[in-house]
């Protein structure tokens, strides 16, 4: 008579060598990297970054991959809409011919702008000071009657 445990273990005893190999592989993979003290710091930094990225991927992204994929799809959709709208508007402007009224209005605006931006550093004729002799305030002549 055997217990179920004995029976199960006896049945899988043949897997022992393969399990030993797996154990050795895991030990080599997980503990050999502890010898990185001898390695140069860029290599250590790179492996640290990759390890961090891998951990982020496994713990943050991979478990919620459907949610992330959905969000990414929404962003791509929004980006496509944005790009499509942006590209379309200049084409319309380039293709449409300006009307005569628009040209006239544009010239008027240009003229006004030129007047406004004209160089005012040199005084004009109107601004130049004139020789001014003040006259008496009253219109009475200068004769004095005593």
């Amino acid at each position, binding site marked *: 008579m055997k217990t*179920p445990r004995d029976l199960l273990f006896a049945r899988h*005893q043949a897997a022992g060598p393969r*399990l030993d190999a797996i154990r050795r592989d895991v030990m080599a993979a997980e503990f050999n990297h502890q010898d990185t003290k001898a390695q140069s710091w860029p290599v250590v930094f790179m492996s640290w970054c990759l390890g961090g990225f891998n951990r982020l991927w496994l713990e943050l992204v991979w478990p919620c991959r459907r949610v992330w994929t959905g969000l990414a799809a929404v962003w791509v959709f929004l980006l496509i809409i944005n790009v499509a709208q942006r590209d379309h508007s200049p084409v319309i402007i380039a293709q449409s011919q300006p009307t005569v009224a628009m040209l006239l209005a544009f010239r008027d605006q240009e003229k006004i702008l030129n007047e406004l931006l004209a160089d005012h550093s040199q005084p004009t004729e109107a601004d130049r000071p004139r020789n001014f002799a003040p006259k008496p305030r009253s219109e009475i002549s200068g004769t004095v009657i005593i």
Partner: protein
Amino acid sequence: MPEVADIEQLPVAQARAGEPAAWDALFRRYQLPLYVYVFELVRDEQAGLDIVQETFIAAVRHLGGLRENAKFGSWLFGIAHQKCIQRWRKRKEILFDEIPESPDEFDDSPDDLLVRREQEAEFMNLLNQLPLPQRSVLLLHFVEDFSLEEIARITETQLGTVKSRLHYAKKSLRKLLEEKK
């Protein structure tokens, strides 16, 4: 064959300190029970070996998540169980069949079911006929003699559900074995 009784002497504290020798001892202790459990669930040799390897790697990387050293065994089996579930989900197998009522009487020893030599092949065949959740609970009970609480923690189910599954699994096995006599 690894002894269930020597769990207390496991060098979990040394493993926490990153001692490779401690990890080697822990892996040596659990590699066969873990493989037996996983293989009997997934029924695929290569998949079983892959899951054992993934479990070991995850254990080394996430030992910080283990709160009590004494629960290392159930923690390790919990990782393996999750890996099996992931595999089942990929295959879209049915995982959970709930057995509503919980039995009042319960026999808690894995050795109360003895198998005669001529029944061995039959026993394994019958074990494989059990639904996955029942098989999972029964294997944890047989292989490591985990307590009901530990099995509940490993399989992430209610204690009552574990009790029911174990009771009905044993009952089915006994019945089938008696029928084959």
